[in-house]
């Protein structure tokens, strides 16, 4: 479980997050949704200690963020940051191999190499393994980044808008893979999504953020309502139910 207590954060005096307390369930997929600027990415960065905690606490499993060792945390929690504008000139295999760095510190074992090959295979990158990442399409590049996070093989995975640049096949297979990781491998996944329908279809738990606060949290079937769309997203869209799942008619 990821427990967040009284988390507040400011950037340059402007409040980004205000007194957030939240429990994200273990072994499930939690989706963070909300309009642009709601503080989703900041929340994710704080959980992953990419930003320094200013107030409040974050506990991941039994590790307290900010006081446990960085390397130890890297074996339990991985994050896919939003795609950097600058792409490294590495071949796909080398990029994915860096995901094993917390374990081997520069001296990969046979296990590490097997984990890399597995990650390449899972994301359909084996054929691209020797290509340079900067020569790939946006979607292939995104898959390579996610494969690197996957190779890190941590119990907790945080993904910031992983569906960016992916086509519908790529997006669906990624979400199905995350589902499998949660259901069959006990991974706890927190994911920032823009498309509520993906959240509704694949996530177990949904956290809607608005102006640096939690607006609503709960199972998608209860939380995705026209009230949510009006109050949080300031838009009027119809919601239909298909197989018991709320679908936003965009």
């Amino acid at each position, binding site marked *: 479980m990821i427990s967040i207590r009284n988390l507040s954060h400011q950037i340059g005096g402007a409040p980004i997050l205000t007194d957030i307390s939240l429990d994200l369930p273990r072994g499930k997929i939690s989706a963070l949704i909300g309009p642009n600027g709601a503080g989703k990415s900041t929340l994710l*960065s704080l959980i992953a*200690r990419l930003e320094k905690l200013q107030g409040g606490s974050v506990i991941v499993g039994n590790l307290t963020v900010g006081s446990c060792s*960085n390397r130890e945390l890297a074996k339990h929690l991985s994050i896919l940051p939003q795609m950097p504008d600058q792409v490294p000139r590495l071949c796909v295999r080398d990029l994915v191999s860096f995901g094993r*760095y917390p374990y081997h510190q520069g001296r990969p074992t046979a296990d590490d190499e097997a984990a890399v090959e597995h990650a390449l295979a899972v994301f359909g990158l084996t054929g691209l393994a020797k290509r340079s990442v900067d020569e790939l399409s946006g979607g292939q590049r995104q898959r390579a980044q996610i494969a690197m996070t996957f190779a890190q093989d941590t119990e907790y995975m945080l993904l910031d808008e992983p569906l960016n640049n992916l086509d519908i096949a790529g997006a669906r297979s990624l979400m199905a893979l995350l589902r499998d990781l949660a259901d069959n491998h006990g991974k706890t996944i927190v994911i920032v999504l823009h498309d509520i329908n993906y959240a509704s279809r694949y996530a177990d738990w949904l956290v809607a953020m608005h102006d640096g606060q939690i607006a609503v949290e709960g199972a998608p079937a209860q939380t995705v309502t026209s009230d949510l769309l009006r109050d949080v997203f300031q838009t009027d869209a119809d919601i239909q139910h298909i197989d018991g799942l709320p679908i936003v008619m965009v």
Partner: protein
Amino acid sequence: MTRWYWAGGFALAFLSFISIFVGVIDLSFGDLWRDPEALRLIGISRFPRTIAAVIAGGTLAVAGCVMQMLVRNRFVEPMTAGTGQGAALGILVVTILTPQASIFLKMSLASVTALVTSLGFLAIVRRLPPTQPLLVPLIGLVYGGLIGAAVVFVAYQADLLQFISVWLNGEFSGVLRGRYELLWLAAAGAALTYFAADQFAIVGMGQAVTTSLGLNYKQVVLVGLIAISLISALTVVTVGIIPFVGLVVPNIISRLFGDNLRRTLPLVAMMGASLTLGSDIAGRLIRFPFEVPVGTVLGVVGAAIFLWLLYRTPRYA
């Protein structure tokens, strides 16, 4: 890849061989057996000069490569972004305060001032918008130019202008046995960076990725800056500022072989050494028997390659 290591090693060995036999005093391969003076000439002048060019070129290319990873910008290098000028400033200050200071003291203070000016550069770069990558080298040139101007001004006031030109314009003609050996320290420093090659490659992917992989970002950056400052200071103290090697060599290698430093750093070092040694040999031959400083030759060659890089790779920074 192994092929390229061999090719680089062979090119370097070939240039070193040429370098031993090119100079004002006529020396041919056969003289080595006939003339005992020939061996003395090689031992006192030609060999030290060759080794100095090899080490200075190789280590500066490595320093440039590491700096480009730390700053995440492909258009910077220590000798044009304030590190080299900072080292010169340190030497100047020691020279004025204690004219009899040992070379070791000069080197130590130069390393410290080089580190301070590098940290200053990094602090400035942090505030630049990441969407404008070309601002970074521009600011670097202005920053380096300002510190260089301060060095010249202080030297002018202290009547040391002739003295500082030795450090500001790198050249190898003054290299003799007993006057270049500090460079071996730079070579050791560059070799040590190789142990952290993976970490520098990871830092090149940004702070978020670095932290996420369990590394201490600030610590890696600081270690890198110390290595860069040490290499720069040692080079400036012994042969002077040599521009452009640290800029063009890492760019060419990155373009051809990517950024996995564990694999590419040896190539960066070999190519930097070859380029510097080749330029030094050219500088000895262009106006024979007079010499053109290696910094001037590299300035011309490097500027041309730099422009070519700017026009060829607008996508990268």
